[in-house]
């Protein structure tokens, strides 16, 4: 438990050394495969986080937050990439030149006994149903494959990137009538995921922010966290398995529950029908609406800190 806390906190510490040199959009290739994904630069800066909407006390109060720079995935992670991670033999069969031994020793998900696409399809569509631990280990796999430190965003990073400088309910204004131009939600999804990137992006080039699938953040959810969160690079480290913050709407979310400041929460009922004990550390058989989007801090932590972060022990779930 202590290990988990310490690792979650450390990972936001940044260093003066900027290894990357250039801070611009780029395409990441998963070595040896045809799979690529794009990242957009999110500049360092300050923004007004939360809302004063008294109907949503957990979004109160509006408070200023300052963040370091990072890149963010322009799209939600798709099955095309995630399935390479989840099945070692499949990765080997799809990777030219073989899979390095360091990757070979990685902790992989248990292959799901149930159909974790929920009949919604794979190609170009967001990977769904993974736990936050599964999302973290996917990032570790990417790190071992690419040498680049990726992780899921903090709640503050997510909202900052989603707002892209905007102050209203949505990055395109306050009128939900325009939501369908930007998002797959309950109103237009026909109860399933869609290929990523079919709708309009936000001003910083991020697609599907308000819909398709909800996205994992690192943070523990506490309703009153904003009243005491840090002003710079805030993070609420998780010392228990539930609830974590999930952000953005999904194909199941009604339009009334969508906005840049809306805070979603993970819930143990998402594993209700898992017939095994201990319940899977990897899969939520009743959460077809949860996915992930990755970030890369401009200034990565030290290799030791990265190692500690990725090697957090999962918390058992009965």
């Amino acid at each position, binding site marked *: 438990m202590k290990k988990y806390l310490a690792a979650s906190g450390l990972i936001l510490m940044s260093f003066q050394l900027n290894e990357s040199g250039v801070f611009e959009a780029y395409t990441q290739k998963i070595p040896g495969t045809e799979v690529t994904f794009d990242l957009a630069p999110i500049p360092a800066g300050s923004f007004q986080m939360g809302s004063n909407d008294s109907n949503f006390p957990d979004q109160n109060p509006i408070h200023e937050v300052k963040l370091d720079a990072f890149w963010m995935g322009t799209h939600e992670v798709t099955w095309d990439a995630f*399935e390479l991670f*989840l*099945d070692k*033999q*499949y990765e080997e*069969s*799809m990777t030219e030149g073989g899979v390095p031994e360091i990757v070979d020793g990685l902790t992989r998900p*248990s*292959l*799901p*006994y*149930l*159909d*974790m*696409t*929920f*009949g919604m*399809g*794979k*190609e170009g569509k967001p990977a769904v149903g993974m736990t936050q631990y599964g999302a973290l280990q996917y990032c570790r796999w990417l790190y071992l494959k690419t040498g680049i430190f990726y992780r899921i965003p903090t709640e503050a990073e997510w909202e900052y990137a989603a707002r892209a400088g905007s102050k209203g309910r949505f990055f395109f204004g306050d009128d939900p009538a325009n939501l369908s131009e930007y998002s797959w939600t309950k109103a237009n999804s026909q109860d399933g995921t869609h290929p990523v990137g079919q709708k309009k992006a936000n001003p910083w080039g991020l697609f599907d922010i308000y819909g398709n699938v909800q996205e994992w953040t690192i943070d523990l959810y506490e309703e009153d966290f904003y009243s005491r969160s840090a002003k710079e690079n805030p993070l609420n480290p998780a010392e228990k398995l539930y609830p974590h913050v999930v952000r953005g709407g999904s194909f199941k979310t009604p339009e009334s529950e969508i906005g840049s400041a809306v805070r979603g929460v993970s819930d143990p009922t998402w594993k*209700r*029908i*898992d*017939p*095994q*004990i*201990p319940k899977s550390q990897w899969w939520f058989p009743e959460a077809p609406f949860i996915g992930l989007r990755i970030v890369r801090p401009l200034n990565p932590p030290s290799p030791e800190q990265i190692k500690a972060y990725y090697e957090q022990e999962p918390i058992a779930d*009965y």
Partner: protein
Amino acid sequence: MKNLNSRRDFLKTSALVTGGMMAPSFLVPGAYAAPANELKLAVIGCGGRGTGAVFQAFETGHPIKLVAMADAFQDRLDNSYKAIFDKYGKDKVDVPEEMKLVGFEGYKKAIAAADVVILASPPGFRPSHFEEAVNQGKQIFMEKPVATDAAGIRKVLAAAEVAKAKKLNVVVGLQRRYQSNYIEVMKRIQDGQLGEIVGGQVYWNDGGVWIRERKPEMTEMEYQMRNWYYFNWLCGDHITEQHVHNIDIANWAKNGYPVKAEGTGGRQVRTGKNTGEIFDHHVLTFTYADGSVIHSECRHFPGAANRVDETFQGTKGKVYLSAGNHGDMTDWKGNSIYSHNRENQANPYQTEHDELWGAIVKGEYKFADAERAAKSTMTAIMGRYATYSGKVLTWDEALNGTVDLFPDTLAWDATPKLLPGADGFYPHAVPGKSKVV
């Protein structure tokens, strides 16, 4: 009934617990009520599923005490015990060291200690475990599939008859049978709302399951037991272990069992030394007595499209079903006949225990799932026989099959019948060459 005295004790003491719920016809054959009035539970097979089933038993809220556990492996048993004890504590878990039974034979003593048993070992052991539990007059929850070959099915069918005669409740973990979308749709199909069912398609297509790597200290028997999914004497191939769920739905919709099977299968992408002998795909047609045909397809192809569901066509309409609570019936003009509400549905893994334990505490005899589960398992085995041999198999040919996959001796140093070749690969069936029955 050799346990007559025990039963009377149970009647006497259980009345205190069940109180107003108790029916005048209260009868629990073979059960014995402990002084503390709990029903005594034993779990045989302490993997994730057996442990999960124990949790579900406790979650029914009925007075239950876990008194015995049996598993081939010490570590599996210990992990299971820890998870159960951590969650439910000493009031519900009273398994002394001598009732933690490790090895191949512990099931007999575990069954003897209980009123109700959970049978959740790898499927190859199910026939002998079920037979023993029935002979000892216990109430039974057993996991699917219920056997891996025809000899095992015949044993289960015989024991199922005895269970009926003894009025022992038997629930089998084909949990779709306890899921409301399936129940509601099947009611309407049997009522004729789709007319005659003339065809259907059932699928379990996904990426496959876990692999456990061989360790140098493992005997061949331990390796196969640890990696049981990949060996037919233990698993029956994925068509039996997994796709039986969907095949069972076809039999439910047809209200019968196929008279013949023909099909194609093989090992296309799962070809390693670490994946035993089972195929990675089976594609079949099952023909029923009225000439209607069900298409059955199961595969473990990572990277390919997934599909796990069931569809049927009738003379008046069609239906789409899935474990995700789909149940959509439409006529041939597209008008809805029935559409199941998918939100907030009960967990069928819990419902099957709620129903079983509810019957047991009330002294009711309500569930005799073993025969239909055996016949649906047999349907899957017949499918495997057809894809392995490349031949057309009739139901009777399949059910009377005499090829015996089970080891002659169960011991860690005993030799299973299937062994890897000099190259480390296991031999597997080859259509057109292999004898399966």
